[in-house]
Structure formats: structure tokens, C-alpha cells
């Protein structure tokens, strides 16, 4: 997997946000990288709304913005949050 790149080729409306998360979760030091999310995501051409939802860990909004459900959940787990608490977490942000 390539390193984060500011020069992604054009893609579908949901491509950049999905690409950002798949790149992040494939990094061996992903847990360390999320301690400074803004820096990591700065390399991606995301809308302001997408960037904010990623920084806010707004699971529902990320879903609405087209992040694949599997990747919403993988991003959630990356934060060390309990799997069984996801329903509560996503409802809290709804």
C-alpha cells in the first residue's frame, strides 16, 4: 500500500474518503498515526465536511458521506474502542 498522497487520481465522490481510511488502516503504525489525524488526512483531497467527520469520529456522518460500513467500523476499532459499544457510539453521534 502506498503512502498517503496528495495527488490521488480523480475518482468517484466517495473515493477519497474511502481511500484515506483504507490507507490509514493498512499502515503498520496506524494506531500511532491517529494520534494526529489532521496531519494524516491533510494528504488527501477531502471536502471540509469529510475532514471534519473524520476528525470528530462522527460514525453516522462518515457513513452518510459514503465511507463503506466495513471501513467505518475498522476506523472505529482502530481507536481501541470496544466492538460491543459501537451501536451506542453511532447512536450517540446520530
Amino acid at each position, binding site marked *: 500500500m502506498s503512502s498517503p498522497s496528495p495527488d490521488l487520481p480523480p*475518482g*468517484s465522490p*466517495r*473515493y477519497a474518503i*474511502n*481511500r484515506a481510511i*483504507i490507507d490509514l488502516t493498512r499502515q*503498520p503504525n*496506524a494506531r500511532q498515526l491517529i494520534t494526529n489525524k489532521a496531519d494524516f488526512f491533510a494528504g488527501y483531497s477531502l471536502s471540509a465536511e469529510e475532514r471534519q467527520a473524520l476528525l470528530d469520529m462522527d*460514525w*453516522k456522518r462518515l*457513513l452518510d458521506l459514503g465511507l*463503506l*460500513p*466495513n*471501513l*467505518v*467500523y*475498522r476506523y*472505529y476499532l482502530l481507536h481501541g474502542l470496544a*466492538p*460491543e459499544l*459501537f*451501536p451506542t457510539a*453511532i*447512536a450517540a453521534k*446520530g
Partner: protein
Amino acid sequence: MAQLCLGLATSHLSHIINARDLGDPKQVAAFDAGYRRLAGALADAAPDVSLIISADHVNKFFIDNMPAFGIGMFDAFSGPVEARRRDVGIPYRQVPSHLGFARYLVECGLDQGVDWAVAESWEVDHGFMVPLSKLDPDGHYPMVPISINCASPPLPSPRRCYAVGRWLADAIGRWDADKRVAIIATGGLSHSVGTTQQGWIDVDFDHRFLDDFCAGRGEALAALSDVEIRATGSASGEVRSWIMLAGAFTGRKAERVMYEPIRGFHTGCGQCLIQ
């Protein structure tokens, strides 16, 4: 000629390995017992080669190249890929495969309208490796992995999955080899991952699905719409592997080995056997 000797279907969630405490102990015990039953059937059948059909959970394939159907063409594969990143409760290991059989299916498919995406190396994920850890932990039986896109809509229709299953049975029957072939379908039943529905299980849907599956009413499963399936959960689309299996065993009745809606696992857990 080769012949189909066994069909197995099972949910594939990892909780049965690494989050067992979240489930009701009686339900978890039923799931364990079901796995033992399926493993016994596989050992009794002793297939020369098996197909194992699962979703890929955005591990091998991503939206820059998302095939409807993928097949592994090699002598071995490995997994679970998740074990590269964390302890998932089962070891990362190699699984023997069968290059010749896979190549035969690819060549026939390309000639007959099943245009597989071909992977010549594959670190498969839990969808394959959790069932294999229960059914064949020591890698006695060569497995050819097949993936169905159940993760990134638009997904292949249930009717198309059923048709590919029918084609598989036909192709296996024409394979000029004295081989016994099993098919293992994994995934489902109703559940959601990463959405507001996570935790909800559509028990009614699961029972209807299993009733049709076990009665050999594959056409009813093929007639399900993507909307109907998606309404039961974001990840319920994995039942496409069961529908492909139903296509391969068209009209054949199946035994319901177990079904438990395990709330703590967020999944309707089912297992069936076609002998």
C-alpha cells in the same frame, strides 16, 4: 468425471474465536456443536478439493478495483490477513489450494460467461479463515477460495449468484478428473457492521431464508432483491454465498444444523449441511 460430494454453509464471524464471552453460553455452545458437526461431515466426505465462498471485507479488494466474483489460482494461500495487524485468536497460516482446478474453472468461466477476477496470491480474511480454523485447522483439504462482492454496492444480484452456483456445479460435473468436490459457503445471516443497525438481527428473515434454503427452494432465494436483503442489515448481503451454494445444489434439500440469533455477536448465526 468429478462430482459434488458435500455442501456446507456457516456464518463466519470471528466472535466464535475471540469474543466468545459476548454471546449467550448456550447459543455459543450450539454454534460450536454445529461447527463440530460440519467438520465431521467434511472429514467423512474427504473431498479431494473444496471451494470456499465468502465475502472479502475490503481486505483483498478495494473500490479502485472491486470484482463481483474473485477466485484464487495458486497452490496455496494464507490468512487471516487481520492477524498481520493484531491477535485475532487464530494463527496466520498457509492453506493448500489446487491450481489445476482453479485454472480449469477460470478457463471454463471465461469461455462460458463467468468472468472471474483472478488472484494469483491472496491473504484471505476472517471470512475464510474462521470457518477453516473450525472445519480443517490442520489444512488436510485443498481449498480454492472464491469471493463475492458483498461490501461495496452495487453488489451482484442474488439471481446472478445463483446462476454462478449452477454454472459451478455444471463445470465441476464436466471436469475430466476423478475428484470429489465439496463447496463451503460462509457468511451471514442477518447482521450489520458499521451502521446504525449494528446489533439488530432480523430473525424472521433468517428463518424464512433457512426454510427456503433447507427445502431446496433456491429459486426463491434467487428471487430476493438486493433491497430486501439490505433491509435486514448492512452485512446480510453475505447470504449471497449461501445462494451460490443453493445454485450449485439446485433443488437439493439441506439439513438445518443450527440457528441462533446471538445478540452479543450482533449476528444471526446459522449452519446447514447438504449431503
